[in-house]
């Protein structure tokens, strides 16, 4: 587990990729896109909860290791100000066979997105806004729904 503001590259953190006994490695790399549903993205600001973040990522990795026959897990998540094309998150899973590596990697990024305490703010040419990821906000189905979305100048 690493929670850091510094950029990283796949080559730096994974080297050749292989690990003894592992026949399969699956990685997921999430990067900053230069456009969202709403606007061009100049930068992404990621806030996190120091202390809880590390604990939560550790818990998720342990959960994956109990749930799937895997050999090792690496999670790196960045915080701070990130530019388009920069890496945000890397999840790498090593296992003897590919099915477990795919399943565990996908599980980890899914649960990370719903439980690790990170929050993204998109900086666009017309302002900054927090990314929301709640069904009420998205679908507009919840009556009297007011999400704490704060708009501000970039």
């Amino acid at each position, binding site marked *: 587990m690493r929670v850091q503001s510094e950029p990283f590259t796949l080559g730096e953190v994974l080297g050749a990729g292989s690990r003894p006994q592992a026949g399969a490695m699956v990685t997921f790399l*999430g990067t900053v896109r230069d456009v969202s549903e709403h606007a061009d993205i100049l930068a992404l600001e*990621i*806030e*996190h*909860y120091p*202390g*809880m973040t590390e*604990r*939560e990522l550790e818990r998720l990795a342990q959960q994956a290791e109990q749930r799937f026959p895997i050999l090792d897990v690496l999670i790196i*998540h960045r915080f701070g100000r990130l530019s388009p094309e920069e890496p*945000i*998150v890397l999840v790498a899973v090593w296992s003897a066979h590919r099915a477990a590596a795919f399943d565990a990697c996908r599980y980890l*990024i899914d649960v*990370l*997105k*719903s*439980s*690790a*305490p*990170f*929050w*993204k*703010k998109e900086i666009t040419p017309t302002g900054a806004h*927090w*990314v*929301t*990821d*709640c069904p*009420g*906000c998205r679908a507009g189905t*919840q009556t*009297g*729904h*007011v*999400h*704490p*979305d*704060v708009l*501000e100048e970039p």
Partner: protein
Amino acid sequence: MLHVKFFASVRERLGVGEMDWDFPSDGCTVGDLLQQLEAHFGQDLAGGHLLAARNHVHVPFSEPLRDGDEVAFFPPVTGG
């Protein structure tokens, strides 16, 4: 004493990142604390979309608190 933290849009709305708060009383829950904080700040904190953590662990609002706890309130997470 409780140590209370706010993150992301909640922090920005309140203009406060962290604060100490006198421990209310035995049996007090995260939800009770939230009501007191909303009264203190004079505003609804999150329109029903607030999450809470106690000592770095996600908890429901029914979670009871103990003196010395760190309690955090934040919107749904959007990492990854």
